[in-house]
């Protein structure tokens, strides 16, 4: 499995006064089993990019290849693609529609042609995985709290057992414990089921902690792409396009500026804390 975008442009409202070029000449390859974070300022094109991946939106120009096949070819089945690339929307309200939680989560797998038994099994498993308790399964999804809705929307996509997960701000609105559990689940799926995962986030900390690769968007273009430790070295440049580096990186960087002997690639809580502890121990040893 791989996804490739070739010279992709996306224009909203062509010919109207609101005409917006949301994606400009995107060239991008996502390999099987990658765990990719996408960051970018508000309106930089992240959601538009994700919506192209499962064919929900069609590129104005350029091509999208899934496993080497052009998804815009006449004989390419969009329905199959939607089952293979599970898209979780930025707002769960845009995704949820059934009368009860369980019906909502069963819709995807049933629609993909799974047997009723599989459908039920996968739906219950997915709800358990995202931390939705049994007391909520017969409730209308619209009467849930914000975080509960997001979990159900995620479960609906997980239950389809897709090859690729395209998650638009999947943990926005989740409490810290829920967030940690969801990322642990995603990491497990990546390993056990060889899943490919893309997620959009505004939390630089989550990107540093969980992504193996980060794509940085600015005004419809990809401006940086690489391993988080490398990308977060561009503190100034990221600041100029409405982004930032994780808090831990900020602390490490300002300590280094003050003359502390701290390596230049601390981006997580553990890395920064460990570096400071090493500095402290070295200093104590030196003093003895």
């Amino acid at each position, binding site marked *: 499995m791989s996804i490739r975008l070739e010279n992709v442009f996306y224009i*909203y*409202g062509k010919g109207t*006064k*609101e005409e917006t070029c949301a994606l400009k000449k995107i060239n991008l390859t996502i390999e099987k089993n990658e765990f990719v974070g996408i*960051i970018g*300022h*508000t*309106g930089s094109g992240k*959601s538009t990019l994700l919506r192209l991946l499962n064919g929900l939106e069609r590129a104005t120009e350029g091509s999208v290849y899934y496993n080497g096949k052009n998804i815009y070819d006449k004989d390419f089945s969009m329905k199959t693609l939607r089952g293979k690339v599970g898209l979780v929307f*930025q*707002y769960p*309200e845009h995704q949820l529609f059934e009368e*009860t939680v369980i*019906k909502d989560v069963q819709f995807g797998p049933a629609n993909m042609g799974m047997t009723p038994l599989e459908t039920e099994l996968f739906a219950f498993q997915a709800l358990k995985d995202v931390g939705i308790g049994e*007391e909520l399964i*017969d*409730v*209308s999804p619209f*009467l*849930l*709290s*914000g*975080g*509960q809705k997001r*979990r159900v929307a995620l479960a609906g996509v997980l239950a389809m057992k897709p090859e690729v997960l395209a998650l638009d*701000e999947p943990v*926005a*609105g*989740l*409490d*810290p*414990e*829920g967030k*940690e559990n969801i990322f642990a689940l995603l990491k497990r799926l990546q390993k056990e089921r060889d899943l490919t995962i893309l997620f959009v986030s*505004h939390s*630089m*900390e989550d990107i540093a902690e969980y992504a193996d690769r980060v794509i940085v968007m600015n005004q419809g273009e990809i401006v940086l792409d690489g391993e988080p430790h490398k990308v977060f070295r561009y503190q100034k440049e990221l*600041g100029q396009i*409405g*982004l*930032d580096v*994780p*808090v*831990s990186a*900020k*602390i490490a960087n*300002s*300590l280094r500026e*003050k*003359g*502390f002997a701290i390596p230049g690639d601390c981006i997580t*809580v553990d890395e*920064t*804390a*460990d570096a*400071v*502890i090493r500095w*402290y*121990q070295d*200093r104590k040893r030196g003093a003895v």
Partner: protein
Amino acid sequence: MRSGGLKVLWRRIMQKKKEAVLIETKDLAHEYGRRDENGDVTGIVRAIDGISLTVRAGDFVTVLGANGSGKSTFARHLNALLHPTEGVVYVDGIDTSEEEMTLAVRQTAGMVFQNPDNQIISNVVEEDVAFGPENMGVPSLEIKKRVAESLAQVGMQKYRHHSPNHLSGGQKQRIAIAGIMAMHPKCIVLDEATAMLDPAGRRQVLETLHRLNREEGITILLITHYMEEAAEADAVYVLKQGKIALAGRPETVFGESDKIKDCGLALPDVSRIVQKLNNAGLPIDKRILTPEKLTEALGRLAAE
């Protein structure tokens, strides 16, 4: 000399304002009927279970809590969108269950919702932001000024003629925030309003809120899952299953790391680093919550 005198006077006025109670809840409880697909009630959820608190005018209060702990339900009471099942809620002295006072309550406590779609009313950004003040009978020249001001504060002037429905998620959220700011309410309640903003947008909105709070004495009640947003609040409330599980100054609340975990939350990253440093024997004040304070403290340690 003169400006110094004015400053003292200003401080005294703000202090007076601060002493007044703006929000008060007494034994507030809220029960929802849980319904099945036919609309029959199958159970009762006690989403708020006995909350008594007071927020003074001019306070900056942050509310934290796990998913489903009752934060949004609580917020909806401050806006008279919900009425107490038990107990009372006063907003600026008005009992929110008095139906004829609903409009007055909503103008006192403006609310930004978790999902901006619930808030978008008009087809043009500018009109959408003007809607609130228009409804309050603000003169049109003043409305124009406020709309321009609020849009600038959230960095969306460029989009003033656009349709809010054709904006990205974070852009919509900025519009919703501007709409409330333009009403100049005494109190702004934000239900995870920064969740979809990029880092610059989040900083900008938070700075604006702190400025409105400091300079205009506007009371802020911020619901969030970003722990570090609580660091600079006057008071933090942590909800758990509809009850207040922890309350106090941010340093105090985050000092209770076991209880914080028990509530489904986490410490801010800065505190997590401090905790690790403490465990390794570094003498760093465990109440530190901001990156600046931490680097300062380490600087002092290095100079010793």
